[in-house]
């Protein structure tokens, strides 16, 4: 099934999405990867405010290339999500509803997604030039010293995604692999 979704979106929207669904995502999302996640969690530990309100937001795991002259952003495909597994459950608990990345997630993340209602989207790893075309605006809103790893606010239009893990725990990686695996 295909859905056109606008971010930010709430937990009712999350409930409608199933592993294997294709998505065109438009609206506002935030970027954060390893170093930014570490800093976000440190802020929470110190009881400080996050640089953006996490409620109903989607975080894209990406560190883009610098923009060439006349371009909005450089290549901007997803990075491996498992490196954010140590931090994601805390953010989901605080209201994060969407994560965009690629690759496997651990059971703590999946349990948090089921408990609080969040969805894990896959973007195509290695298609960074193509994905950058869907990004219409970018602004660094926190940790500029991290360079490519700074937190950016992005405006996206028809960002092509696939639901990898839904809030019921269905996992497209397992479903897809089992279908084409010869020795089971």
């Amino acid at each position, binding site marked *: 099934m295909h859905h056109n979704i606008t971010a930010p979106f709430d937990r009712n929207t999350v409930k409608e999405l199933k592993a294997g669904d294709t998505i065109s995502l438009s609206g506002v999302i935030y970027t954060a990867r390893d170093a930014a996640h570490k800093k976000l969690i440190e802020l929470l530990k110190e009881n400080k405010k996050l640089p953006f309100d996490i409620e109903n937001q989607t975080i894209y795991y990406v560190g883009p290339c610098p923009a060439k002259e006349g371009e909005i952003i450089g290549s901007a495909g997803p990075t491996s999500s498992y490196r954010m597994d140590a931090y994601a459950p805390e953010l989901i608990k605080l209201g994060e509803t969407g994560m965009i990345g690629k690759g496997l997630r651990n059971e703590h993340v999946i349990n948090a997604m089921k408990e609080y209602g969040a969805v894990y989207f896959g973007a195509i790893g*290695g298609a960074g030039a193509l994905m950058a075309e869907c990004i219409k605006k970018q602004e660094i809103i926190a940790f500029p010293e*991290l360079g490519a790893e700074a937190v950016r606010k992005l405006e996206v239009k028809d960002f092509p995604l696939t639901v990898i893990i839904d809030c019921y725990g269905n996992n497209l990686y397992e479903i897809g692999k089992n279908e084409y695996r010869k020795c089971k």
Partner: protein
Amino acid sequence: MRDIDAEKIIEAVKNMCMNANYYLNNDIKQAMESGLQSERSPIGTQILDKLLINAELAAEKKVAICQDTGMAVVFVTIGQEVHITGGGLADAINEGVRRGYSEGFLRKSVVGDPIERVNTGDNTPAVIHYEIIPGDALKIELAPKGFGSENMSALRMLKPSDGIEGVKSFILEAVDKAGPNPCPPIVVGVGIGGTMEKAAILAKRALLRPVNIRSNIEYVKNLEKEMLQKINELGIGPAGLGGNNTALAVNVETYPTHIAGLPVAINISCHVTRHAEAVL
């Protein structure tokens, strides 16, 4: 002695950094196109198609195929009759990387210390391997390596009694465990023999061999073919969403080893397996 100006090395490395990141190598492109024909999964077919469109777009706009423009791995093969003038060889290579990543709008992905983790801001230093041979030529091979796939690599010190069957199950185990993480379709570099570090360097070197060239050692060639088939039967597929194109090639390099050992290293690379070379 033959003099080679350091500035020429800087220029060559700079250009290779940019070209390797903008243009998908032809051998890879052909393997992807043939994968597109053989892929049985509809979603897998779509992924391969989008990856090829992405590569075309990157070449046309001269932007990076993937935002992870890698850590620069450089293999230098230097003739012992070569004399570098106007600066040090390592300095010249790093200056080439610095200029290539800055002028090419490539991502700076290197931190100066693995624990303190402050970005060096210019993607240096490169990881440089040197080999000295007779003659007066200087060959520089560059393989900017992304870490989504690098992180899925593995090394194991097998026992001689494990034999080739042990090597095979280790390869399949590593690829299966990596699953969707290294951005399949992948290229699998395998180093067998030597010592611990030699096996790892062989595995990296194996990734520089074009995917359409098989080993000229008979049993290694057969191993490469068998492993490619078995990996593609794992079902992981393009982007890990299921399918029969998980790897484009398995490249294996071997080296003599100790009577007590059978080191095996597996270096996984994504579909953007970048390799460029210049002979000065």
